[in-house]
């Protein structure tokens, strides 16, 4: 018997699925209901160390309007068909565009991509889910709005809605993206349309300027969640500053991370350095300039001695602190003095600005990220090992030197046990650090793939045992991470799920919620 579908949703018969697909075809045009292996191929590639079959979708629906989505959820409720929502679908290293569970139907909102409003005076945007950062960037340039975006490293191909809904980060002063979100429109599982905050009030014009509305604040429950389908999203943009000064500070020893963090924290909390600073390890930056195979061959993680050679050959610190100053030239001059004095004290820091580093490809792409310019240079990371395997390990740390050193050492030790390299960085939040480690492995090598899986599992186990929680995780490990946050939170999540989506049709499994 030839199979009609490449996968089926759990517990749904082919007959029922057929009926659901026929109904979807009545709502969307034929070319917007994808079921063939060829059409679904782009949804299948992930970088996770699990069989692609575990995350193969049964279909993809390319909806473009709220009304279509309302009809889709009605059909899903009728046939108990689960849908997995994506906006721009570039959640690379966290599960890409593939669903959490085999057989889920991807609701792909990429074609729902209108820029509804960008207000120059109040510096906010209201967009649909499929809008990319590139699209918005071009729009702002074309209309000379003088506003800057903050975006993650996959900039051009990702988008503000998906990134912020997964609570992603960028590198400008607006880098903690969800802090700058203001107002959502959400299609609920029962088909009702909720506008959060001031948006609930008819004829209100404050939806994108005042976050809280009246009563319990709801926006948060639609992030990293499966309680609704976000169809419009408001957020604040940064006015273009008159001057911008990016810089990098290099250190030579891994233990120096203590001094770095102790120096940065007061500057960051007081706002002298306003942006989401990155403290990148040499191995995070090396792939932009060097080839791993020029320094090591054979199995095992890269030895420290080779890392030092890379640093020397390619003018990298073991730690490379990327930050920037924004404002008028006078403001920058004053703050630059404070920064150089603070970092100059111990004599260990080497401070470089555009003057010295304008030709350095790592500096160039970091400077772009800090001013919201498009770049995909960071994808060099995947040429380091080759083979396309990657998972982001993303524990949260206090912005305290002793803590960052502890986390770095523990991560390195566990990675080494499995023969993997420490490609890590710390993204400095307001008082926290997102410790971001790209667990890179060769997905064409079954042994290394198995090792990567076990390694990631052990990282989560060991970190949570010490009270270090993960801020976000790929779709193969969502249950494991949910478990680390304890039973009460899980129960509350489940209670909300039951209330808002009793048939469990929206992204079952997201953040471990079913």
């Amino acid at each position, binding site marked *: 018997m030839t199979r009609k579908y490449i996968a089926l949703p759990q517990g749904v018969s082919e007959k029922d699925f057929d009926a659901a697909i026929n109904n979807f075809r009545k709502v969307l045009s034929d070319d917007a209901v994808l079921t063939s292996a060829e059409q679904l*191929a*782009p949804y299948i590639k992930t970088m996770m160390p699990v069989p692609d079959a575990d995350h193969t979708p049964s279909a*993809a629906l390319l909806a473009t309007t709220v009304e279509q989505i309302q009809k889709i959820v009605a059909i899903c409720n009728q046939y108990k068909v689960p849908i997995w929502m994506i906006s721009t*679908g570039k959640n*690379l290293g966290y599960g890409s565009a593939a669903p959490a569970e085999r057989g889920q139907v991807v609701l792909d909102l990429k074609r729902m*991509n209108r*820029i509804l409003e960008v207000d120059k005076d109040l510096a906010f945007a209201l967009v649909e889910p499929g809008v990319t950062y590139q699209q918005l960037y071009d729009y702002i340039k074309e209309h000379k709005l003088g506003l800057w975006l903050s975006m993650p490293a996959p900039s051009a191909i990702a988008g503000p809605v998906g990134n912020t809904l997964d609570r992603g980060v960028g590198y400008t002063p607006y880098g903690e993206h969800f802090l700058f979100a203001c107002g959502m429109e959400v299609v609920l599982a029962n088909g009702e349309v909720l506008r959060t905050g001031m948006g609930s009030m008819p004829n209100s014009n404050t939806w994108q300027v005042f976050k809280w509305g009246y009563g319990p604040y709801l926006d948060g429950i639609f992030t990293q969640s499966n309680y609704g389908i976000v169809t419009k999203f408001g957020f604040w943009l940064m006015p273009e500053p008159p001057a911008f000064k990016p810089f990098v500070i290099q250190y030579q020893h891994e233990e120096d991370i203590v001094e770095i963090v102790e120096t940065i924290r007061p500057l960051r909390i007081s706002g002298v350095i306003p942006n989401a600073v990155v403290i990148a390890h040499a191995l995070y930056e090396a792939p932009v300039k060097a080839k791993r195979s020029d320094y090591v061959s054979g199995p095992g993680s890269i030895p420290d001695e080779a890392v030092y050679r890379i640093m020397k050959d390619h003018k990298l610190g073991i730690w490379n602190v990327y930050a920037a100053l924004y404002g008028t030239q006078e403001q920058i001059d004053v703050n630059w003095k404070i920064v150089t004095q603070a970092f100059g004290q111990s004599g260990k820091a080497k401070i470089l600005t555009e003057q010295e580093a304008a030709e350095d490809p790592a500096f160039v792409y970091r400077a772009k990220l800090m001013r919201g310019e498009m770049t995909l240079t960071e994808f060099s990371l995947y*040429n380091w090992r080759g083979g396309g395997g990657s998972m982001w390990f993303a524990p949260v740390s206090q912005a305290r030197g002793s803590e960052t050193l502890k986390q770095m050492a523990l991560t390195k030790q566990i990675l080494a046990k499995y023969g993997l390299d420490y490609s890590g960085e710390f993204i400095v939040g307001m008082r926290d650090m997102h410790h971001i480690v790209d667990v890179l492995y060769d997905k064409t090598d079954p042994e290394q793939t198995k090792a990567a899986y076990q390694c990631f599992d052990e990282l989560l186990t060991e970190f949570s045992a010490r009270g270090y929680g993960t801020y976000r995780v790929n779709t193969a490990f969502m249950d494991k991470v949910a478990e680390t946050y304890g039973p009460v939170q899980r129960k509350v999540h489940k209670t909300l799920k039951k209330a808002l989506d009793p048939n469990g049709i929206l992204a079952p499994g997201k953040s471990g919620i079913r």
Partner: protein
Amino acid sequence: MKKTRSGNYIVGCIIAIFFVAGNAWSAQDEKTTPGFAWKDGAEIYAKICAYCHDVQVGPPIRNRELPAAYIRAVVRNGRFAMPAFRAAEIDDESLTKLAEFISRRSTQP
């Protein structure tokens, strides 16, 4: 009796407000521009592919007369460091134009 009637009236008002609100929303939506569409192959190359293929994240692909079918297959399936691109991002027609643009031998470097 009276009480129930005014109760119904209030419910009626709420429903009316709900619909008015719904209309206000869709009116606002209609004022805005239509969705995004690619102009041509060169635009897609510049706004996606070039960020990797012109900066040594990926190999050069222009001026190599790579077969169009091969280019389309790599774009849809992705390859190691290169993510896959869906028809929702680059529709089939635009992908055909893009593949032509890339495989065509141009006089420019």
